[in-house]
């Protein structure tokens, strides 16, 4: 399973499925990381984490642990 965490800066991909439970999962979905949504990995913070991505026209930052929950596939 490839997730957002596995992508490099500059990669694009499409969301396949969101794993996890509870408030975190709901937040991920609410912020637009739903099935079929295109994402672009912009960069990682100076210390390596969190990750900045572009989804649905805006910039979102999330920790690697949170990014692990979002399964993607590259197109």
């Amino acid at each position, binding site marked *: 399973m490839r997730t957002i965490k596995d992508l490099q800066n500059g990669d694009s991909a499409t969301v396949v*499925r*969101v794993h996890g*439970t*509870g*408030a*975190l*999962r*709901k*937040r*991920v*979905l*609410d*912020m*637009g990381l*739903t*099935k*079929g*949504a295109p994402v*672009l990995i*912009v*960069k*990682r*913070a*100076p*210390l*390596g*984490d*969190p990750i*900045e991505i572009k989804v*649905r*026209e*805006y*910039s*979102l*930052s*999330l*920790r690697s642990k*949170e990014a692990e929950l979002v399964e993607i596939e590259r197109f």
Partner: protein
Amino acid sequence: MVTVALVGNPNSGKTTLFNRLTGSSQRVGNWPGVTVEKKTGKLRKHADVHIVDLPGIYSLTPYSPEEVVTRDFLSEVTPDMVINIVDASNLERNLYLTTQVMEMGVPVTVALNMVDIAESRAIAIDAGKLSAALGCKVVPICALKGEGVDRLIETVLAAVGQRPKHLEFSENTEKCITQIEKIITPRNNVSARWYAIKLIESDSLAEKVFKDKLGEIKPYIQALEKSADDTGEAIIADERYAAIGRITATARTEKKKDAVTKTDKIDRYLTNKWLGLPIFAGVLLVVYFFTIGNPEEAKWYNVGAYLTGLLNDYLSGPVYDACVSFLTDAGVSSTIIGLVCDGIVTGVGAVLGFLPQILVLFLFLSILEDCGYMARVCFVMDRIFRHFNLSGKSFIPLLVGTGCSIPGIMATRTIENDCDRRLTAMTTSFIPCSAKLPIISLIAGDIFGGSAWVALFSYFLGIFCVLISGIILKKWHSFAGEPSVFIMELPPYHAPRAWNVFKTTLDRGWAFVKKAGTIILLATILVWIFSNFNWSLNYTEDLNDSMLAGIGNAICVIFQPLGFGGDWRFTVATITGLIAKESVVDTFALLFEDGIVGFITSAAALAFLTFNLICAPCFAAIGAMKRELGTKGAGFAVLYQCLLAYAMGSIVYTVAGLCYGDPVLLSNIVLTVIALAVLGCLLFMKDPFKCINRGLPARSEVL
């Protein structure tokens, strides 16, 4: 009387619009039972229209107090109209909230804001087409420039009472919704459809409302989930965004795909791998330069510190003298003059004197917040904080706390996660605030020959205590909780909006003054009485005879393991530090005619410093903690802080005492070993709440 609610995403310009609609009639308070700010006001030129600013939210989940407050308000109070402010440059995610609000059945008018920003990104939105596709009125505005606001008001007042359309989901989902709608009957004004959708999402609050019908409802939801091979939450979220995509396709045209925005270009430097942290350090230094610093040594360009120095001089000089002469002329007894001038004016004046520094600090912080840089600060610092069970969002309160703990504690409001917020509020005062600098300077100067490492020691001690508290307190049940959800929007940069910045600065400054006025006044009067009256309640000039000295003598023995229990005056100084930390230095001036040298050993001085830096903050800060944590929470915080201060003090005294050759008693060593053992255990013991804290399923569930 018409009630209009303002709903929208964070960073959508809601505050700007609210300010435009209500002007100076705004009132800020709290939603009952939660630490969520409530802003209300009257619409300009329409005194009968009452506007309520609901918190900025992304969705209507049951997970955060802001969202729950909004849900409750919309369902219980049912406003006559909701103005949903939508950021045109971020349409899909904003409409995600819009559609949920519309589903509740309340009338909605969409205020399409930031159309100019969308245009600068070569995105055009047709408001008419959007309105037709969405099913409610859409009015383009520019909240910043005030354009379109009059038309918005007209449209809102005309559309009161009109129920909006709702999104159509997929066939299977609609079938499920209809099946559930047949079973439930909401007792309030919210449409059954909204509850049905929430139940499909396994919304805990909706499930509580219909708990007796759950048995009937669940099978339908499970069937839907099986057919889609996903949970109800994901199904609804997917279909909602899909439906929104169809709506925006009709109204939105993009002339240039994925343009690189100005924000992206700026972030190439500000969150750059190599430049990001140095730039951040630079920003901190700038803020520090203009706000903090020793008021006595400040030049005019150290604005905050300089003005504080001026105000202090004014309050302790002309104002003090004027009070004395006024009261003397009025024939008031000298005791009362003492109370009013030496007690109240001096005591409250000492704290009010800080107002300039605090205002300048708040000004800078508001600017950084408003322009969007604060989010980058959290982004950059999160990695470090995460290891100590805090989040990057905790950094700002701690940063603000270097100036003054009170706004620092107040700033914890922005932290969504309740446990993180309370933990940060409790540990903010560990970082030396500007009021503690005089104590540090005094000890450094008188005992350690002006050595700089005393200040370094103080800051590192503070940071150390914050970090270990993060680890220790998470193991206490009231702080255990799901790990904070970091996911955070990085809003586009924009020039700070003057009105917003000034309003925020003044609001916070006023809150500080109110705090100073009430708590400190009371405390100052108390301490003045205790230091000027003896046990027979006779006025006494001799401090050694006063009640305060009596208390000091009684208590000072507990500080023996910390090395400064021999002389009651140090204990008294610590107590007066509760009014304002600078009072410690004032008390020394009062009680020790020639300074403290010779009355305390180096090791004990260090322990004294440690204790005063870490123990409970001044009364005003305790008041701020009470506001954020509740009375019980603040009580626990104070207890924890004092215990930690005592433990750290003991460790510092024993270690430093042995190094400096103090006569360290066996009892001191024993106490230190116990303190170390306790701290060690708390730090390294297994986390009984490990599962909750890490967000893992409980062992029993797994098995």
